[in-house]
């Protein structure tokens, strides 16, 4: 595993977060949540820092990270794409939309394109069932997406 250099500013921010939780072992999940929002993902190097700050083993941190599907060790793309697979979206063809995204981007769910531009994930209901099927790119919501429209959405961010 090649070592990556974490931003020192972000590390300082993370250490502050740990401090705000009194560096308590029991706050590991909370710290991981904050760490993922600061860094976008939880690389091994980051887990080592967290283990040290909370005085727990790196193996334990890794155990928690791999247990919860919310946590990811892969960096998200510049434009994270999420496809809603909630009931309403699903019955209106979200799965076909997802398949089209996979085909166009040539990645699987949970992966990031080699150029770092897009990553693909699924979620369950964003509370916009009237617009089903719904796709999120970053914070932007796309409603009534059809497989034909996938290429256009991707193109919007590909310039």
């Amino acid at each position: 595993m090649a070592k990556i250099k974490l931003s020192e500013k972000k590390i300082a921010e993370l250490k502050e977060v740990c401090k705000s939780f009194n560096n308590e072992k029991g706050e590991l999940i909370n710290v991981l949540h904050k760490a993922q929002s600061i860094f976008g993902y939880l690389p091994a190097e980051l887990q080592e820092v967290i283990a040290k700050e909370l005085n727990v083993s790196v193996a334990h941190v890794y155990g928690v990270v791999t247990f919860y599907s919310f946590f990811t060790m892969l960096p998200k793309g510049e434009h994270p794409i999420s496809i809603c697979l909630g009931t309403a979206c699903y019955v209106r063809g979200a799965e076909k939309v997802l398949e089209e995204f996979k085909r166009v981007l040539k990645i699987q769910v949970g992966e990031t394109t080699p150029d770092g531009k897009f990553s693909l994930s699924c979620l369950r209901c964003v509370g916009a069932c009237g617009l089903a099927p719904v796709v999120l790119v970053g914070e932007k919501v796309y409603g009534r997406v059809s497989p034909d429209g996938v290429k256009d959405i991707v193109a919007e961010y590909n310039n």
Partner: protein
Amino acid sequence: MEMVKLTIDGKPVEVEKDTTILKAAKTIGIDIPTLCYFQLKDMNIENRPGGCRICVVEVVGRRNLAPACSTNVAKDMVINTHSIRVLNARRTVLELILSDHPAECLTCAKSGSCELQTMAQQLGVRELPYQGEQSTYRKDTSPAIIRDVDKCIMCRRCEMMCNDVQTVGALSAVNRGFMAVVAPAFEMNLEKSPCTYCGQCVSVCPTGALTEVDHSRNVINSLADPTKTVVVQTAPAVRAALGEEFGLAPGTLVTGKMVAALRRLGFNYVFDTDFAADLTIMEEGSELLDRLTRYLKGDQNVKLPILTSCCPGWVNFFEHNFPDLMDVPSTAKSPQQMFGPIAKEYFGKKLGIDRKNMIVVSIMPCLAKKYECQRDEFKVNGDPDVNFSLSTRELAQLIKLANIDFNSLPDEDFDNPLGESTGAGVIFANTGGVIEAACRTAYELYTGKKLEKVEFNELRGLESIRHATLDFNGLPIKIGIAHGLGNARKLLEDVRAGKSQFHAIEIMACPGGCIGGGGQPFHHGDSEIIKKRAAAIYREDVGKPIRKSHENPFIIELYKEFLGKPLSEKSHHLLHTHYFDKSQGTFVEE
């Protein structure tokens, strides 16, 4: 204490409140089967994740079956431990576990000692009705321990030992559901983790998921090579446990039979690590006295307490966790590693044998010794001082392989000169033993008086952390003892904080000391076995004509003829070592 009355299998029973059903049943002779549950009684070690569900019982009035290991008794409970419903559920649970377990019993290293295999027999499983996907993982071989987690049943005993008891933190449950497994961080190899190779995970693993690296093939090849002189040394703890592998009662001393067996296996010289333990006392004891005298003279640079350094698991532990305290432990090598250079550089040279043609094999209760003998600083031009280290279990296997009827062997004596030892060398096997042996010698050297009573009973016992003050002719010597690395950590944190009051501290990585080592016959959670081994070691000590290391005539001769005196230049070169900071870059490399 509040008592609770209930009924188990139609029998009335009264137990203390907060007792589990499992323990309550045991008091009336009902042995509910368990798999993930594990306990070492009186040693503060317990694993009860309630995960495997083998121990389910029927509690009348309750909808679901209850896991006996983690359900407490309640007033007027009525429990059935072998109703049809329970038996069916228990069998299904086991069949499901087996559906994701390789059926390799014929070739598995754990066959015969495997608790899963025993359980399948006990429950009468005769076919595997569930066929489906099997989880497969990469096999991981380290210098001492092999992880074959295809055989892991997620009992999490190893995780409990590694984290709660040893506080090593090399292993954790990772991933989820079908992919869940116990592994080091980032599923890296054990070698890259902070593992100390103490082997306690192997000691408690119910299956063949964790086993030792087998060196016996190398030993067989060496014995068959006519150009090699093969020398064997046996650690003190082995003689108190080896008999268990041949059906003898725990605590049977088999020193003489063990020597006879080794001779029949073809070793040219059967020597004793106890001799090297006596040598360790000369060096480590002198170092203690040296530091103590300088300290009493007001030397500010002296590091006290001095920590024993005989235990390679412990050495690995402080190299990983306390690199800032590396000048605190004694620089004396462990007895295994003292024996190596004495055999090759002294004994071998005396006989005119080049070290390349001498193979030193050690028989150890320990898995960390396998790693220790491979360390670069214990090699001369690539030739290790100790070539191969076998566990007690591997030796038993080797004896069986050579068609030796162990129990009918006569008692034989070790060869001289490196086979002669004192009672002080023997007690190295028990927690508290190294420091007791050191005190027997240090007392006489310091006070110039003869020790009237050689036993220091205040240093013995199984409490996790012990301390005692010994009277060295008016000088109070404060001794601390810890066994189990979690307990050691507590004493070390005091040293780090400058709060430690001790002059000397003995640490052994395994619960009970070497008698409970990771290479010993499996105790399957019976702490009585460990206690009986400890008692046997003290019996062996009492039976020895000489009980103080500095009175060993061959030790005296070794110094006269070869080493000069303790802490001499030659001693430093051959018998002392240095330590390495292993705290950095454990997983992620540049």
